[in-house]
């Protein structure tokens, strides 16, 4: 099984501009940053959440806390996969009660990851509100989940895959649309 790149969706510069815009949107659409916190999902969501927090700090001098959520324990497919995914750990060093949380992830697809993330957050307490920020919304929702902050909406087919490459973990910075070819 190979992947074939179809087209680039975001260059490094475009990712940066998109995150700037998202950071501003989050602050504008939150009633004050006092209770605001960002929760990054799995690996790339965490990197994006940290970048957003840094951008917010740069233009507003406010330190929005960032937490990391590992959703492995909350997945809905655990009884169908042959071995359980590695746990990377949840690290949320602030209480979740009454917080205005924004879940941050790279790609929104079926919505199952976000459903698992919401379950994970409810195990920690009772947030006042949970919204979602994603770099790419690729459609094909299987659950009634929506993002409040979207970098870019892209139409995709079932076999296509969105690859997000971030400097911190992939040594390059871009978002591509690829096809899986057997």
């Amino acid at each position, binding site marked *: 099984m190979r992947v074939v790149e179809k087209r680039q969706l975001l260059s490094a510069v475009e990712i940066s501009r998109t995150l700037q815009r998202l950071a501003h949107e989050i602050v504008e659409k939150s009633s004050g940053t006092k209770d605001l916190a960002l929760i990054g999902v799995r690996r790339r969501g965490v990197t994006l959440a940290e970048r957003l927090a840094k951008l917010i700090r740069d233009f507003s001098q406010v330190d929005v806390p960032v937490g990391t959520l590992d*959703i492995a*324990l*909350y997945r809905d497919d655990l009884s169908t*996969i*042959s*071995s359980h995914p590695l*746990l990377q750990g949840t690290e949320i060093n602030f209480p979740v009660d009454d917080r205005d949380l924004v879940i941050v992830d790279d790609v929104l697809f*079926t919505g199952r990851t976000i459903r698992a993330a919401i379950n994970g957050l409810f195990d920690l307490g009772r947030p006042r509100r949970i919204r979602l920020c994603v770099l790419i919304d*690729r459609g094909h929702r299987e659950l009634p989940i929506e993002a409040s902050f979207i970098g870019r909406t892209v139409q995709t087919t079932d076999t296509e895959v*969105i690859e997000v490459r971030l400097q911190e973990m992939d040594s390059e910075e871009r978002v591509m649309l690829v096809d899986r070819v057997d």
Partner: protein
Amino acid sequence: MLQRLSHLLGTESLSHEQILFLLDQAKPFQEFQRYPLKKLATLRGKTVAIAFFESSTRTRISFTTAAARLGADTMALQAESSSLKKGESLIDTVRTLEAMRPDGIVIRHPSSGAPAFVAERLEIPVLNAGDGTHEHPTQALLDALTIRDRKGKLEEWNITILGDILHSRVARSNIHLLSKFDTRITLGGPAMWVPRELEKMAPNLRVTHRIEDALEGADVVMVLRVQTERIHEPSLAADEYIAGYQLTPARLRLARPDALVLHPGPIVRGLEIDSAVADGPQSGVLEQVTNGLAVRMALLYHLIGGAPTDAPHPAKDRSNAAD
């Protein structure tokens, strides 16, 4: 490539990498014990048979709680060991279990090798919760996790195990595990409970019958209880044991100043250990209990679950599903 575990029968057969993997995977479950809501749906719909053929409260409760917190159901099987005949009854038990179709079995048995016997006959994961004098792998894993957390690493320590080593599956599992890391192990106790032959178990392992010698320079001191139920020969009188081998504050001072004191439990205060030591700042006894839950949850999570066949994940081709 880490070899995937199908059972946990002992620490002797685990590789260095597998042990580190299990300790790392226990970390999120340590965090989990602090959550307000300690209930996951991760193993929902799975049944774990908790088959204890030997009395135990702590280990049984620990495994049962671990399974329940993961959302699994448990089947509690307890049998009086006095009514068991070796071999034959175990086969019958295996057949009964098979008929009830659990997804995994946690077994404690007075016969060494019983979990391996069961593992050969059932196609479900088997976790050894203690078999005869052979192994108690989850105890060794939680001890290792406690050492790593309290001392910062698992390597380069002088580790002393005190007490009735000969009859101790806890000691054996710990020796097998710790000797895979760069440690120096000292076994200390009365000669009849700590025979010289034990030195053959691992390199960098020595036996001594003087407690002062055993404790000097120790970074970790594991105190075993005196297992009266296992002893068939005339044993030491309690006050002789206390005089010769009890871990008192004075004796603990022979060890390194920041030495960690561990005990698998249950503690018999005033026998193998003085209360002041058991409750003192160097004691890791309570963390051992919490770490036991975390280790057992990590094991149940990784061993139990997954499709009965090796069918590929139905959504395998969608890489934008969770990593």
